[in-house]
């Protein structure tokens, strides 16, 4: 008996790895291999561990096994024809050794000019430029609604206009600062002033921000050589190959080697490798005709992993989710959203009550949706299906369809877009994506909810389905002072302790509910994070004080604090600046810092505060974890009127105001509480939303209350008199 048992155990021990090896090997059909690749990539990873009762596969939970060792890369060839990587002169790079030009490479089959023009990810405001002060943000220094021209207090530096007084960010500066989150093309290739290639720019006009950059040492303009740097072409690879090497791409951008950015994306794939500081093409990856061997180069539809490169790299996916709050992880930093299929309770983060959070970070990610399933190309025949409302009434079927060939030649890269307060670029595209209700029949569910239609009309689905954000998000950015690293003072909500400190407990936050205008003109209540920023402005028309001036005023050349800066802020006189001293909490400190700025050449500095709402659209919970509590909105403690902490303090007692291009109704009081913190108490405009139990017409209510009290007192008095008179009569 014992020997039989031993035999069974030995057989099992031998077979188990074998089964796993077989399951991981390349014996799958291409579809299975693709799916396996996705599991490794993580987009489907959470590809649920089958429940134990489902059979033998539960003995080997695929995620766990896959996590032990990265599965072999699928080497099945792509259906994409072989690609000859070419330089800008249409020479195969393997022969010329020059930087890859994707316009030349992809342009043979795809209309790259059309793609670049119809692409707000590339244009980022270049095609929506306005004169300074006329942008919808209301800022005097903004020149567009996009990343190219719309100032962002998180990244801070300002795109210098033509004829600038003092340069802050020339076009080449812009690429170096914003390029890591820009796909290329648009303003990274074309002059905003001439519409001609930036390579034609000559440094003959010292007031031309295309031709000059800021010298951070002298704080003066320095000429930029576009011939040497090249331009940053629209980088197709960033979205259309799996695992593009973004770190190397960013490294090239930051070095000002824009022309090599696309090439750097292929480092690590075997197609290119770094040789010293240079990028060399690997002969082994190329066929005789100069095309890349398919096993080294797989062109594919954009996957969520591609989008995460710029929008938030929260998900490592083959591991439990771990993330860091930083501007490199933009989406999570600004909203706390994490688009990952992984279960929250298996996260690697120090989340409060993690063991009870049996939900995925995002239910749509868990259900295998990719970003591009919702944010698809507008003329993709796969998605471009007219609904009944859009189809001409007399047609049952509209046969006029774009063929796949036509689509592949001219794919519209203006990707379908939702509604968000922060998505200010290409507002004309707002609402172009299918929203929740286009896919889900909300009325078929939600049986618990009275007045479904009214709720669906007045609330965004996320109001209940993003009832809590599980990750921290930025709360405030204070550029009025700099810390010892030369960075602004940043606070987060949703974390107890320092953000990114493994010892800090992440407890998440309850989003503020704000009325947001959607493309049908309706305002709907939806969840938001609000980020408040404090900064110095100078001049008339005003503009933010340059980061270089802040550094010159506050820091020595070696990056340490200037003694004057320490003296201005050091409250306890110990010669050091502690965290609680790094804030402009008194008029004396404000004056002292003003003087420092003026000594660095800043003219009439004053403090300004600004509130930027960020709409929460991801991190969606399924119905089981959605808000079911009526009184969370209806009642005196309604979320819709809850105080929102904007900042731990108000530098120089400045009052922040909301940006004007967020399509948000932010009514309410903004005031500093007794605890010194700045709060916003939202009020609802009953013209847009009337919440039973929360809103009332006070004077009308009082008339009613007085009528009831009057009636009660009247009958009480009458009854008492009746009682008294009857006693008297009895006595008589």
């Amino acid at each position, binding site marked *: 008996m014992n020997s039989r048992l031993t035999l069974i155990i030995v057989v099992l021990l031998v077979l188990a790895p074998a089964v796993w090896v077989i399951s991981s090997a390349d014996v799958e059909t291409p579809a299975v291999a693709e799916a396996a690749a996705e599991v490794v990539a993580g987009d489907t990873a959470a590809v649920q561990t089958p429940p134990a009762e489902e059979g033998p596969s539960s003995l080997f939970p695929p995620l766990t096994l896959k996590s032990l060792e990265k599965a072999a890369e699928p080497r099945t060839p792509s259906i994409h024809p072989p690609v000859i990587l070419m330089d800008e002169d249409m020479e195969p790079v393997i022969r010329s050794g020059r930087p890859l030009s994707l316009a030349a490479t992809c342009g043979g089959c795809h209309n790259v000019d059309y793609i670049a023009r119809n692409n707000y990810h590339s244009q980022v405001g270049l095609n929506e430029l306005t004169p300074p002060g006329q942008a919808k943000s209301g800022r005097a220094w903004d020149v567009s609604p996009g990343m190219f021209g719309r100032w962002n207090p998180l990244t801070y530096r300002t795109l210098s206009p033509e004829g600038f007084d003092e340069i802050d960010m020339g076009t080449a500066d812009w690429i170096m600062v914003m390029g890591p989150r820009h796909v290329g093309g648009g303003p990274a290739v074309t002059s905003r002033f001439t519409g001609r290639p930036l390579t034609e720019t000559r440094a003959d006009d010292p007031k031309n921000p295309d031709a000059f950059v800021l010298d951070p040492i002298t704080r003066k303009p320095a000429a930029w050589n576009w011939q040497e740097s090249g331009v940053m072409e629209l980088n197709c690879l960033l979205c259309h190959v799996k695992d593009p090497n973004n770190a190397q791409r960013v490294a090239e951008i930051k070095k000002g080697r824009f022309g090599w950015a696309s090439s750097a994306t292929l480092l690590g794939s075997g197609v290119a490798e770094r040789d010293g500081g240079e990028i060399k093409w690997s002969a082994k990856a190329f066929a005789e005709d100069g095309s890349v061997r398919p096993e080294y180069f797989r062109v594919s539809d954009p996957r969520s992993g591609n989008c995460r490169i710029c929008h938030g790299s929260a998900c490592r996916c083959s591991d439990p989710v771990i993330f860091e709050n930083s501007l490199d992880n933009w989406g999570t930093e600004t909203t706390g959203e994490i688009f990952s299929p992984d279960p929250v309770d298996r996260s690697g983060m120090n989340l409060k009550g993690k063991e009870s959070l049996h939900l995925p970070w995002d239910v749509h990610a868990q259900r295998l949706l990719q970003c591009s399933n919702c944010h698809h190309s507008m003329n993709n025949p796969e998605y471009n299906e007219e609904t009944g409302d859009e189809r001409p009434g007399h047609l049952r079927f509209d046969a006029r369809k774009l063929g796949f060939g036509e689509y592949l030649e001219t794919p519209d890269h203006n990707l379908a877009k939702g509604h968000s307060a922060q998505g200010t670029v290409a507002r004309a595209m707002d609402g172009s994506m299918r929203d929740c209700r286009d896919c889900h029949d909300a009325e078929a569910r939600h049986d*618990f909810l*009275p*007045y*479904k*239609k*009214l709720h669906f*009309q007045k609330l965004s689905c996320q109001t209940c389905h993003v009832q809590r954000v599980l990750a921290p998000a930025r709360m405030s950015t204070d550029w009025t002072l700099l810390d010892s690293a030369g960075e602004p003072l940043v606070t987060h909500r949703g974390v107890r302790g320092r953000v990114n400190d493994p010892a800090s407990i992440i407890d998440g936050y309850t989003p503020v509910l704000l009325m947001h205008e959607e493309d049908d003109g309706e305002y709907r209540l939806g969840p938001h994070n609000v980020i408040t920023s404090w900064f110095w402005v100078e001049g008339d028309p005003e503009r933010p004080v340059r980061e270089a001036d802040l550094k010159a005023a506050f820091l020595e050349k070696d990056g340490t604090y200037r003694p004057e800066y320490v003296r201005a802020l050091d409250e306890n006189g110990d010669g050091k600046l502690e965290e609680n001293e790094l804030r402009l909490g008194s008029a004396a400190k404000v004056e002292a810092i003003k003087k420092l700025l003026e000594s660095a050449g800043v003219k009439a500095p004053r403090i300004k505060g600004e509130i930027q709402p960020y709409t929460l659209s991801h991190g969606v919970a399924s119905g089981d974890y959605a808000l079911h509590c*009526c*009184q969370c909105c*209806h*009642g*005196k*403690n*309604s979320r819709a009127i809850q105080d929102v902490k904007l900042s731990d303090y108000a530098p120089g007692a400045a009052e922040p105001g909301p940006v004007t291009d967020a399509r948000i109704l932010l009514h309410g009081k903004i005031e500093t509480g007794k605890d010194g913190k700045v709060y916003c108490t939202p009020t609802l405009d*009953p*013209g847009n939303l*009337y919440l*039973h*139990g*929360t*809103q*009332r*017409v006070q004077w*009308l*209510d009082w*008339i*009613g*209350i007085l*009528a*009831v009290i*009057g*009636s*009660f007192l*009247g*009958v009480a008095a*009458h*009854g008492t*008199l*009746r009682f008294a*008179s009857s006693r008297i*009569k009895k006595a008589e």
Partner: protein
Amino acid sequence: MEKKVWFYSFYERIWHWVQAIAVLVLIMSGFEISYAGNFSVTGFKVAVTLHNLAGVILVVNAFLALFYNLAGGLLKRYVPGLEDFFTLGIRHATYYIWGIFVGAPHPFDKTPEKRLLPLQKITYFMILNVLLPLMIVTGALKLSAEVNPAWVEYFGGLKLLGPIHRFGAWMFAAFLIVHVYMITTGHTIFSNLKAMVLGYEEVHLDDGKEG
């Protein structure tokens, strides 16, 4: 002389108590909806369901009563005449302001045909023609949001209907307090209540009263 007089038919009594319960439920649940977070008996969601249910019952019952009174030719008993606003009304009011305390005889004899006294007629006339329709219309419009929110918007939206409906509720509550108190002003404290339960009342008939 005491006489047992039947005032209320079985249907009328059932109708009355159904309305009474519906109004009570409406006021309680309405209060819970309006002051969620301050006052809770059933919880918000149950309160909404109860409120809607009681509202529908009240309206159906009201229309049944309208039909009953129309078919029975009884409607005129609810319509005050001009004298009810002036001479009779003043006499009635004077009784409650003064006579009731000094033991003066009630100025009117209640009969099955003229069961509503002048001030009652005026009060019910206002309630049935102003307050109740106002509550029914605003309530029904609010309820219609379940079917089509556009209808609510067409009539000014919840921002208008909500406060009006709530003001009406306060008025109903005020009426209810006085109504309950007035029950005690019969021959005995409970004689009116007894009549609405049993259907008859022991009426004391005196010469010289107007009925």
